[in-house]
């Protein structure tokens, strides 16, 4: 017994030993540079890039990563084509009521904020701004998985365990959404440390927020790439930062998440050209499997002035209000599209699980006949014999 007590003590001792000093993400993170096939620089990504990752650039060109060099931290992406999404711009109709117009981002030149660019493409449905995506209330839920992320120029460091810059950005977005009449819950729960367990801890926060059935579930971040110029942008005469949208493709809601991100970009392209930098569709799930209308937003990068990121929350609030609550018909469409996309992902997953279940059953029972026998008997027993004939038990040789 002494031996096992010693093992137990050793294991308990090992846990705290595993603790290492937290390194700032800025230094710790790997930065991949992605190039087009011709060698032109496309973008950088903080975090590993995989073959088949997709990238929708600011000009809505879709690229797919075809080659990754982990030693040089570079990747090559091939141009696939133009990515299109419908954007709905709410504008004042000539009759004084709110009207929603459907436009394609590539159909017309960009418009100034709040202008009637959408109307030029033709109004499709008059609608009021009352949403129904979250049971009749305009509700958006937000949290930050990495509650330490900060902006070096403004916060003095890239990572703060208390009073992190990203919380200021999230709070600003909440305030701007509320100014538009959108009820916003920003859960500032800490998920420290900034390690592989952070998404597991933030999953608990996301799951609690999900119960409120918000129209969207947003994870607020900042990027980790070093060059602030990639994010700095003057929008409507104000110094702001661009926003990158991240979608995890390793989740059953991936299609729905992607559509949601595309819709945000398409609307932003019309209202505030350049606000949405791009969409990165990469490996991972970022807890987006939990909710079809969830997306990760990166307001600027570690070297961005925080005030620029805060300024962008005002623009993003207008975009989100438009995308989510642009009209009753729109909100309903969002929910339906989200459900359809999520349903497709779930069907694939269930299919995969069924195949895994058959393999498992085969291993457990040994042969196909034994498996069929067991399933038939189980079905019969569970349904009281109404489904599946109960197979005869083998006769006792004695």
């Amino acid at each position, binding site marked *: 017994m002494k031996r*096992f007590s010693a*093992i*137990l003590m050793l*294991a*308990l001792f090992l*846990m*705290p030993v*595993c*603790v290492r000093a937290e390194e700032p993400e800025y230094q*710790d*993170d*790997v930065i991949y540079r992605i190039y087009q096939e011709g060698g032109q620089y496309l973008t950088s990504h*903080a*975090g*590993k*890039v*995989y073959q088949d990752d997709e990238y929708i650039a600011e000009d809505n060109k879709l690229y797919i990563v075809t080659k990754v060099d982990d030693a040089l931290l570079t990747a090559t992406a091939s141009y696939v084509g133009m990515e299109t999404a419908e954007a709905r711009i709410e504008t004042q109709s000539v009759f004084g009521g709110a009207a929603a117009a459907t436009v394609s981002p590539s159909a017309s030149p960009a418009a100034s904020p709040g202008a009637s660019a959408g109307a030029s493409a033709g109004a499709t449905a008059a609608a009021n701004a009352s949403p129904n995506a979250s049971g009749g209330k305009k509700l958006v839920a937000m949290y930050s998985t*990495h509650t330490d992320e900060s902006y070096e120029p403004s916060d003095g460091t890239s990572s703060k365990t208390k009073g992190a810059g990203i919380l200021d950005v999230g709070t600003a977005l909440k305030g701007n959404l509320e100014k538009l009449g959108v009820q916003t819950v920003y859960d500032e*729960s*800490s*998920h*420290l*440390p900034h*390690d*592989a*367990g*952070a*998404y*597991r*801890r933030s*999953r*608990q*926060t*996301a*799951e*609690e927020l999900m*119960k409120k059935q918000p129209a969207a579930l947003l994870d607020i971040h900042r990027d980790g790439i070093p060059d602030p110029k990639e994010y700095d942008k003057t929008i409507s005469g104000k110094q702001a930062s661009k926003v990158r949208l991240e979608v995890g493709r*390793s989740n*059953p809601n991936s299609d729905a998440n992607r559509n949601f991100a595309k819709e945000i970009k398409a609307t932003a392209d019309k209202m505030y050209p350049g606000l949405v930098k791009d969409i990165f569709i*990469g490996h*991972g*799930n970022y807890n987006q*499997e*939990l909710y079809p209308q969830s997306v990760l937003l990166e307001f600027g990068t570690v070297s961005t002035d925080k005030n620029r990121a805060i300024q962008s929350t005002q623009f993003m609030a207008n975009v989100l209000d438009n995308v989510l609550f642009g009209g009753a018909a729109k909100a309903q469409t969002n929910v339906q599209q989200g459900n359809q996309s999520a349903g497709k992902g*779930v069907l694939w*997953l*269930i299919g995969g699980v069924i195949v895994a*279940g058959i393999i*498992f*059953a085969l*291993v*457990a*029972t040994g042969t196909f006949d034994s498996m069929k026998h*067991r*399933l038939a*008997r*189980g*079905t019969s*027993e*569970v349904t009281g014999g109404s489904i599946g004939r109960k197979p005869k038990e083998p006769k006792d040789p004695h």
Partner: protein
Amino acid sequence: MSFGFILLIVVGILVMFGVGQRALDRLRLTDKQAMLFVALIIVGGVIPDIQVTPLFAFNIGGALIPLALSIYLIAKADTAWEKWRALIAAVLAGAAVFALGRFLPAEPERTQIAPNYLYGISAAVIAYVFGRSRRASFVAGVLGVMLADTAQAVINWSQGIDQTLILGGAGAFDAVVIAGVLAVLLAELFGELIERAARGAHTGEEKGK
């Protein structure tokens, strides 16, 4: 619908169809008891977290029910050695989960398998290697994640970070449930494969005689 939720439903269906019969037998549960636990985890998971103190909360479906089942399994163990084995496997799994959280890359795209599933896999491997037991696997998966979460919370508090420890906060979606269920399924799969191989070798030897 999340993978964890689908996993639970699939487990429920497998239980109904008797596919996991042997695993349940080894877990000392009947089909009805297993279904009851699955239902309690799902229903308990949607109930809001129970806040015990400002720094500690737990979820009924995500922590209390799996913990109760773990305690039941330990209490039902035949020998003191089995009980110790399950507890040691749980502590080792806790250390593994903690270490995975610390040393895996922080960004999920940098890991091939989502950490939530890695915890279950590591608990299953540790528990099975250590105890060759489905019961120990479940206990190790559930308690391992809880111990790792608690250890992290203690470290955070010691550093002056007032972060609430929420055990099983994601309910049926939580790593506690995923790790426990995945651990027992993997242990069953390992166990069946190893035992079948051993039986095959044994039969072969007998035939060869």
